[in-house]
């Protein structure tokens, strides 16, 4: 049996790797990829809590399932916005975009 602490350490490390990427990277798509890492660590925590602490119930399971769906929608909208930003500004580095309106 795997100790519960291992799962915690794994998801906490994954979360903060994502936070590090989000703070450091200056490219919109790279920032979005870092957000995906953070979302995945949260999903992992939900599933793991559900399985190990309350194995008879399914709340965490379904929360992760719906969270996967929501993140698909989020990615679709965010990528549409990024493509549009690129089209208007000819750049997708965040510090070149000083105001949203041309």
């Amino acid at each position: 049996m795997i100790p519960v602490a291992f799962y915690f350490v794994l998801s906490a490390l994954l979360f903060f790797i994502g936070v590090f990427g989000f703070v450091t990277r200056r490219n919109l798509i790279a920032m979005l990829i870092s957000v995906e890492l953070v979302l995945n660590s949260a999903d992992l925590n939900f599933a793991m809590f559900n399985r190990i602490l309350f194995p008879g119930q399914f709340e965490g399971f379904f929360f992760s399932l719906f969270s996967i769906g929501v993140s698909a929608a989020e990615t679709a909208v965010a990528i549409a916005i990024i493509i549009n930003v690129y089209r208007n500004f000819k750049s997708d580095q965040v510090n070149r975009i000083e105001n949203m309106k041309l």
Partner: protein
Amino acid sequence: MAKLVMFCILAVVILGSATMCVMTKRIMRAATFLLLVLFGIAGIYFLLDYTYLGTAQIAIYAGGITVLYVFAIQLVSRRTLQGLIERVKLSKAMGGLLISLVGLATVLGVLLKNQFINKAADVASVEVPMKTVGMALVGSEKYQYVLPFELISVFLLACIIGAIMIARKEDDK
């Protein structure tokens, strides 16, 4: 014991790929490493006997979202993005590292000192039956989830229509 070994392999794959994903300068490689991270997470779900969740993870994340990223990277810019070498300021990287380490120390301190870790139920290693998942997904009783299920289908449709509306070319009138 076999599970522990599998967990360690998956953890090494996940953490290594995630680190490479945020450290690499090329955006296409970041997307590829993201794919590896997603497969690793799906493996952890399989290890927890949530096979349905792992399959959904592979189908939606690895199959859908990564393809979206690759298409976006290929579409956005021929010149800038594909061969892009990003310059990261050292001070900014240090700041990010500091924030991450402080946050990590806080989270791990709180979680590992907590008592509920010791209450872990010893789970029998049986796969969650598909019938249970299906009944809970479309039932309308207590602890059944037909309403979120319908909500998320409408939500996905709305988001995809919104994405098309945002991303389409403005026609000049």
